[in-house]
């Protein structure tokens, strides 16, 4: 095993609270009677629906076509009938079209297994499969995977880095996947290496998951896979591409460039598993592991959930709330999105659903900035959140842009560390929105 490492600039140490769910095995949830499948589950242009009200759909049938280079296909996770195409608000606060499908339980049942031998396939064929089956990054950003796995001309991939960091507090879906589907993840990472023609595969795992590390290490030794495990110190936001690459291969991505510019392709553990299933079983991305946790959940756990399942259904599977939650979050507490409607569907990027109690969501009184500079110290991108905040507050959006506002990825370190409890991340979002609006 390699020597333990981490990234250098910034970062914070939030309480991880993973003990609530990290020992809970992944449970498959039954498909509900009615599901809602949004056509915008990925970064980029929403897919265009190719079904209409009244259409019958099959399990795994393509119901939305990718509408551009950065876009992804949407598949029906079930067999049934389209009741309507409606507009709804997604947890990220955007409005999008969605298909409401009445489920035909019998036809939706899992059927015959397809087993492709991936070692016999050529890389282009594999990338095409990843594209056709709608695989996107499942760590949260939901970047279309086929775009990531297509190495642009003139560039070369040297490393495939598998992201098993899961640095967001509460979330344990990737952790459980590494324990329960370890071999598939390892094979999936070798498939990615084949697609991008990379020689080295490194899996980055934070040291709060020793069991997952041991499990993968054992599998690697047993099968003598050409994969290395990189143990990492605990530090948020290590699960971000930029920080992960610095921690694993010691190289830094410059502002405005991509991992491939330093010869690396990064894939999250969840997406790697989805890639494995897509290539060997021809299975589109129609279900995912979701961690349901937080102080207000009676029995937190990890669930394999059909995409489109209303969040209410998974909460019910946890025996409901133990108290009225103060805040509901889709994703992790640092970068996830607050939402209020329990009918909101689970999507490709929903890694967790959190119901936080008043005590956990700690709002606290806002006070004035005392220019202590702790946000500057914590910012992993080397920005000056305090100055950005003050400029955005005064509507000096151009000045904020000149201070590299766009490099901010809204990881939340600054707002987490701020003793004055200033809404720093929201102000960055506001600044980006307003400078877009101006143009």
């Amino acid at each position, binding site marked *: 095993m390699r020597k333990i490492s981490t990234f250098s600039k910034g970062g914070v140490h939030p309480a991880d609270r993973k003990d609530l769910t990290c020992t809970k095995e992944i449970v498959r949830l039954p498909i509900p009677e009615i599901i809602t499948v949004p056509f915008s589950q990925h970064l980029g242009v929403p897919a265009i629906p190719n079904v209409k009200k009244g259409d019958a759909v099959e399990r795994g049938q393509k119901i939305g076509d990718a509408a551009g280079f950065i876009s992804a296909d949407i598949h029906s996770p079930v067999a049934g009938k389209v009741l309507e195409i409606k507009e709804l608000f997604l947890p990220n*606060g955007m409005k999008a079209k969605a298909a409401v499908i009445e489920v035909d339980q019998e036809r939706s049942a899992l059927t015959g297994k397809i087993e492709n031998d991936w070692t016999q396939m050529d890389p282009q064929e594999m990338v095409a499969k990843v594209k056709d089956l709608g695989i996107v990054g499942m760590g949260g950003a939901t970047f279309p995977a086929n775009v990531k796995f297509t190495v642009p001309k003139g560039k070369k991939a040297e490393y495939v880095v598998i992201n098993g960091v899961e640095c967001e507090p509460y979330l344990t879906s990737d952790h459980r996947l590494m324990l329960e589907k370890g071999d598939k993840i390892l094979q999936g990472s070798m498939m990615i290496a084949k697609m991008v023609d990379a020689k080295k595969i490194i899996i980055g795992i934070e040291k709060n998951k020793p069991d997952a590390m041991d499990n993968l290490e054992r599998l690697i030794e047993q099968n003598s896979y050409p994969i290395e495990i990189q143990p990492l110190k605990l530090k948020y936001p290590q699960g971000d591409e930029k920080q992960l690459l610095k921690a694993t291969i010691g190289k830094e991505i410059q502002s405005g460039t991509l991992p491939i510019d330093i010869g690396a392709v990064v894939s999250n553990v969840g997406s790697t598993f989805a890639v494995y299933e897509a290539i060997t079983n021809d299975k589109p991305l129609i279900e995912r592991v979701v961690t349901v946790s937080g102080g207000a959940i009676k029995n937190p756990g990890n669930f394999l959930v059909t995409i489109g399942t209303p969040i209410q259904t998974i909460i019910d599977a946890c025996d409901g709330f133990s108290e009225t939650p103060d805040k509901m979050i889709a994703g992790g507490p640092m970068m996830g999105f607050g939402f*209020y*409607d329990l009918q909101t569907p689970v999507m490709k990027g929903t890694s967790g659903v959190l119901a936080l109690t008043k005590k956990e969501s700690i*709002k606290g009184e806002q006070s004035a900035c005392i220019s202590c500079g702790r946000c500057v110290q914590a910012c992993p991108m080397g920005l000056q959140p305090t100055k950005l905040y003050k400029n955005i507050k005064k509507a000096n959006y151009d000045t904020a842009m000149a201070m590299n506002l766009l490099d901010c990825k809204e990881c939340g370190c600054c707002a987490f560390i701020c003793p004055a409890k200033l809404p720093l991340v*929201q*102000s960055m*979002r*506001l600044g980006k*929105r307003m400078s877009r609006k101006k143009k």
Partner: protein
Amino acid sequence: MILNIIYAFLTVSVLGTLFGFGLAFASKKLAIKKDERVLAVEDALPSANCGACGFAGCAAYADAIVNAAADITLCAPGGATTQVAIAEIMGLEATGGDSVKMVARVHCFGNDETSKKDFSYDGILDCNAAAILFQGDKSCKYGCLALGSCITVCPVDAITKGEDGRINVDKEVCIGCEKCVTVCPTGVMKMIPYDADYFIACNSNDKGAAVKRACTVGCIGCKICERKFPEAGYTVKNFLSEIDYTIEPEGRDKAAEACPTSCIRIAD
């Protein structure tokens, strides 16, 4: 002793005279020639420095008119009078530009009592910041979020928030620069003529049932105003009534009385 005082006095006087001549010489010799037309145009502009024309202020706009042949119809606060004045200075003909003075108004009468909210918002008190999340906390996505981004941008302090939680524009103070219209994320701030009698206090394109679920004072698109008072200039488009201010209306006040949700309100 007295001599010292006289010497000092003389020295300072002589120096003062010399410097005075020096400055007088410099101001003549080193003077920067400014186009008189720029000064004249600047005088003709209302000096509100609102930025509605797209330039940094009145001086910058005046400079652009003279030196870069900028469009002379851009000054919203000045309106037709300013246009004529500028045209005269520049030797142009005053064309285009509507002569009706327009003022801003919030086309929503909802507040905490009348309108439902979906969740409690506790972020930055700015409409655009609130709109990032589900287009605001209100169930109605077209209404006024009442966090006052328009108040912040108004260059003449014409906009205030009342105790009832509604945003009001003082039409006597409003210069019609449309900065509030630009900043408003829901588009509820719209321009109406200064002498408009009535306005539709709703901006919702939702169907009637959805409007009723969200708010008690919204336009439900029932078309009573359009059908029963055809001469009054109402048309309902996308479940929202609109007033045509260009016609001579008849019975507009009756329609306002007949409106079941009283969203046709007097523009005072």
